[in-house]
């Protein structure tokens, strides 16, 4: 882990890593000047950012509502203080009082130390937007984090994890670097697993031209989440869909949202639209991925370089529709274990999916217990925006970030007998919670929501 004046920070991408994602890192002696120039561009472009810079009265409501502050008690993790790391620079260069009175009005000259502080604290923010949800002024501090990360990206400062994902996406069309033979091999393996465990024949068509539905799963499902893929395959087979998985974009996520919305995110959008065009599909259905669903649902329409001729829906909405119209037979007693639901932040605070998740989970399990607070008031898992760093000190932070979630799960009692299920229908949540339920000894197994659908289906 890089050391910088006692700041905690994830391993940084090397110069070569950055070049792979089209960035020539700015030399140290030009970083300050460049950062101010980028900040100027961003403030002129984003009114949401200016609102955050100009309107905060430091009421402090965000403090106790932020799980990273609750877990670490580091004052710089209070959302308004985190934003202040940029606000004091904004004030210095772009306000009259800051230019005239400097420190007297809380303005500060930018220097390399502050840029390193941005890197440390903007990558301790999970971009969960719980602070935005409670802010009486409607300030979305996540927008400040996003702009901070965008400027850092342009300067050449990105965590190695995020930069490697950007490079893998460009190389293979997915975050984990799956090749088409690996995709096909894994799906054939899962067909056999479904036959063994559920006794039904399920095929996973890849790159099938003329399919009606293009299903875009998370690439992490191919390594870590077998039941999520199996559940999706069983669902599409059950409803008799003519469907396919595209090998050119086997990725529901879009890390561009998290570090480079201007190029990386847009590039992934274009890739998706090309895939849909080539396969001639009628509809695109999204897999389990929280930040990705926000990117594709909320950002794609405004950022795509090509017209969007296809409806894009989420698989949870599809399943909920089939449940509401009585076209899906599910036996809630098949999964005889207590289950609680973690609401992924991007689903509930950005995409209005809280009720959809409940329609599905109530149909799948008999013993469903809510955790509190929930729905749009839910706390983040502590992995949000892919803070999945495993360098020892960052890993310790992840444990602290998930402390609030652990308290919530414990309070439901689902893990009391050690056989509970924590349903977390998002790949980042899963990757965070798999180790965290062990660290906090919660007595639960982490599963997706489509996993439960597959397990509860009653076949004719």
């Amino acid at each position, binding site marked *: 882990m890089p050391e910088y004046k006692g700041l905690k920070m994830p391993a940084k991408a090397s110069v070569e890593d950055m070049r792979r994602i089209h960035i020539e890192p700015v030399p140290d002696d030009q970083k300050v000047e460049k950062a101010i120039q980028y900040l100027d561009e961003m403030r002129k472009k984003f009114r949401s950012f200016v609102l955050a810079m100009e309107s905060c009265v430091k009421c402090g409501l965000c403090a106790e509502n932020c799980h990273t502050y609750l877990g670490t008690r580091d004052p710089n993790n209070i959302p308004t203080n985190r934003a202040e790391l940029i606000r004091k620079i904004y004030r210095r260069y772009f306000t009259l009082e800051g230019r005239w009175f400097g420190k007297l009005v809380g303005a500060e000259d930018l220097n390399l130390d502050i840029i390193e502080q941005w890197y440390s604290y903007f990558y301790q923010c999970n971009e969960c937007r719980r602070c935005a949800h409670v802010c009486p002024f409607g300030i979305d501090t996540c927008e400040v984090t996003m702009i901070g990360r965008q400027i850092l990206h342009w300067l050449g400062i990105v965590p*190695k994890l995020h930069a490697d994902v950007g490079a893998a996406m460009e190389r293979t069309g997915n975050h*984990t670097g799956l090749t088409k033979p*690996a995709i096909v091999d894994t799906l054939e393996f899962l067909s056999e697993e479904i036959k063994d465990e559920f006794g039904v024949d399920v095929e996973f068509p890849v790159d099938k031209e003329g399919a009606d539905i293009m299903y875009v799963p998370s*690439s992490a499902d191919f*390594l870590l989440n*077998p039941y999520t893929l199996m559940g999706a395959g069983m669902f599409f087979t059950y409803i008799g869909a003519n469907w396919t998985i595209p090998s050119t974009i086997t990725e529901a*996520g879009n890390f561009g949202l998290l570090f480079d919305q201007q190029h990386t995110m847009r590039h992934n959008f274009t890739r998706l639209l090309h895939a849909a065009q080539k396969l001639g599909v009628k509809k695109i259905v999204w897999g389990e991925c929280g930040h990705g669903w926000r990117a594709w649902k909320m950002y794609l329409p405004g950022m795509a370089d090509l017209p969007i001729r296809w409806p894009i829906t989420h698989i949870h909405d599809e399943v909920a529709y089939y449940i509401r119209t009585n076209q899906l037979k599910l036996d809630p007693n098949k999964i005889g274990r207590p289950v609680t639901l973690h609401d992924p932040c991007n689903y509930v605070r950005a995409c209005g999916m809280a009720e959809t998740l409940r329609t599905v989970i109530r149909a799948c399990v008999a013993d469903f217990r809510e955790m509190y607070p929930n729905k749009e008031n839910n706390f983040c898992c502590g992995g949000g925006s892919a803070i*999945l760093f495993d360098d020892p000190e960052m890993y310790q932070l992840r444990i602290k970030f998930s402390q609030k979630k652990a308290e919530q799960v414990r309070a439901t009692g689902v893990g009391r007998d050690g056989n509970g299920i924590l349903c977390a229908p998002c790949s980042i949540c899963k990757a965070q919670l798999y180790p965290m339920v062990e660290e906090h000894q919660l007595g639960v197994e982490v599963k997706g929501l489509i996993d439960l659908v597959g397990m509860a289906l009653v076949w004719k």
Partner: protein
Amino acid sequence: MPSINVNGVEIEQDEDGFIVDPNLWNEDVAKALAAQEGISELTDEHWKVVNYLRNYYLQFQIAPMIRKLCKETGFSLKKIYELFPSGPAKGACKVAGLPKPTGCV
């Protein structure tokens, strides 16, 4: 950048100890990487996991699904954690000379 010297060859590693060039891997490199992981001796059971991962990687340029690794080796996930305390991805894949997995893993 850290590195390990195996039989006179300097092999570059990333911050997390994964070898940068998977082509430089051989059995002696595996032993050296295992030692860094705190595994003093690679038993037949270790080799079963390492060889499966290695061959899968050579064929598909990526690690297999963990469920498949367990099925094909006949080891439970718990057993794999006993063999490689850092787990299948960060322990076993590292010893087998695979690159560090990226994404939500």
